[in-house]
């Protein structure tokens, strides 16, 4: 029991993923700044933002909404992100518990933050938040099919294994999945999926700073907004870690820790560069992009896997 609580709250749970995610959030902002020839924020900036929101600011509850659900939704988001993080990182770090990383559980837990953002935004009673919520819903419908096909392709490539640890073991005894044509195609689809899951710029229409002024988060202030920031930090860490575990060999012991860090930083760097070099697309374009092109890529990858490429 105690060890399970330790796994959930300290390592590789809440505190570890939050700190790693905060670092990656700083990395994101710093790289964005460097791309725009700016200097960028200091290293501890995500920490200042989080503690300012958590400790200093006042919480304002919506008069025309449902305050209970409004406050509960960010907690649900943090819970989902942390659970997904624990279930991804336990197999990735090769910590042997009874759980070997059932990939479908991880898939469902990863959708929990997006769903709780929708619930929270609709509970706030703000029309702009409602528009953001409906956009987020359409975005989920667009990318979830691609994401589950992507996971199915990885399962197929590993020889019908549904647990993350066996998938990593398969790669470590053979070659990493990304070292083949189908693996590269899957990596492309996976990166765009997590770009949409993180609501980063080509797919940030639920937040849409310019037109919806933060959209789904418009009514959040103080501690609930800090919880949303925390959930976003955690997602920014665990989704690249998930891609690394599925396609890029996971982690070997010893010096492998360094390689794992470099691989995660590389994936985040790719995400940030895509974010900085693309304008926001319309929701219709995003749907077409995922329904037609990304699904096509994953289906081609599945066919190639069936032929053993």
């Amino acid at each position, binding site marked *: 029991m105690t060890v399970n609580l330790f796994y959930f709250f300290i390592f590789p749970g809440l505190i570890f993923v939050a700190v790693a995610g905060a670092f990656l959030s700083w990395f994101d902002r710093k790289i964005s700044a460097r791309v725009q020839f700016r200097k960028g924020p200091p290293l501890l900036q995500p920490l200042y933002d989080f503690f300012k929101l958590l400790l200093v600011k006042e919480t304002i509850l919506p008069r025309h909404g449902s305050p209970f659900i409004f406050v509960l939704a960010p907690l649900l988001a943090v819970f989902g992100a942390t659970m997904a993080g624990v279930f991804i990182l336990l197999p990735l770090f090769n910590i042997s518990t009874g759980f070997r990383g059932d990939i479908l559980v991880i898939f469902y837990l990863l959708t929990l933050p997006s769903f709780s953002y929708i619930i929270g935004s609709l509970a706030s009673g703000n029309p702009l938040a409602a528009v953001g919520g409906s956009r987020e819903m359409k975005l989920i419908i667009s990318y979830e099919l691609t994401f589950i096909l992507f996971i199915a392709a990885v399962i197929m490539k590993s020889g019908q294994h549904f647990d993350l640890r066996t998938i990593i073991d398969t790669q470590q005894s053979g070659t990493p999945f990304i070292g083949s044509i189908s693996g590269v195609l899957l990596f492309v689809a996976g990166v765009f999926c997590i770009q949409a899951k993180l609501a980063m710029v080509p797919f940030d229409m639920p937040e849409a700073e310019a037109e*919806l002024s933060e959209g789904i988060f418009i009514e959040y*202030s103080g501690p609930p907004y800090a919880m949303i920031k925390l959930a976003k930090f955690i997602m920014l860490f665990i989704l690249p870690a998930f891609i690394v575990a599925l396609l890029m060999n996971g982690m070997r012991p010893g010096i492998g820790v360094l390689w794992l860090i470099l691989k995660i930083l590389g994936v985040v760097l790719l995400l940030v560069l895509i974010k900085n070099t693309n304008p926001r697309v319309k929701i219709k374009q995003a749907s077409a992009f995922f329904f037609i092109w990304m699904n096509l890529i994953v289906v081609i990858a599945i066919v190639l896997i069936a032929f053993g490429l």
Partner: protein
Amino acid sequence: MGFKDYCFRKSLWVFHFGGASCNNCDIEILDCLTPRHDLERFGILLVGSIRHADVLLVNGSINTRDKDRLLDLYRQAPKPILVVAIGACGCTGGIFAEGMTFAGPVDAIIPVDAYIPGCPPKPEAIIAGIVKLAGKK
């Protein structure tokens, strides 16, 4: 300065309210976020919703219609909130001070924490004002 206060000073998120402005101050405020001046060095971000704001930046002369909006925004902002009046119009009324729709300078409507005069103030002046604001108390 305690830990809470320190975090607040290091992460000021700015909400920009333009009254009946001639847009020169708006341009200079945007200038502060460009590569040359880059206010994100100090953790300052421009946010789109008043619920996320720590600083309410007011420029332009406030006329009778703007007054209600400004009061609304001030009441809806999560406390603590700092108010900065930018430009001659925000600080005193400037050339509009005797206009018939003028509803008073910003500090006649809501309490102001910092004044940055100028028509328009240079970005350097705005940065100096923000740094003084962050080091206040």
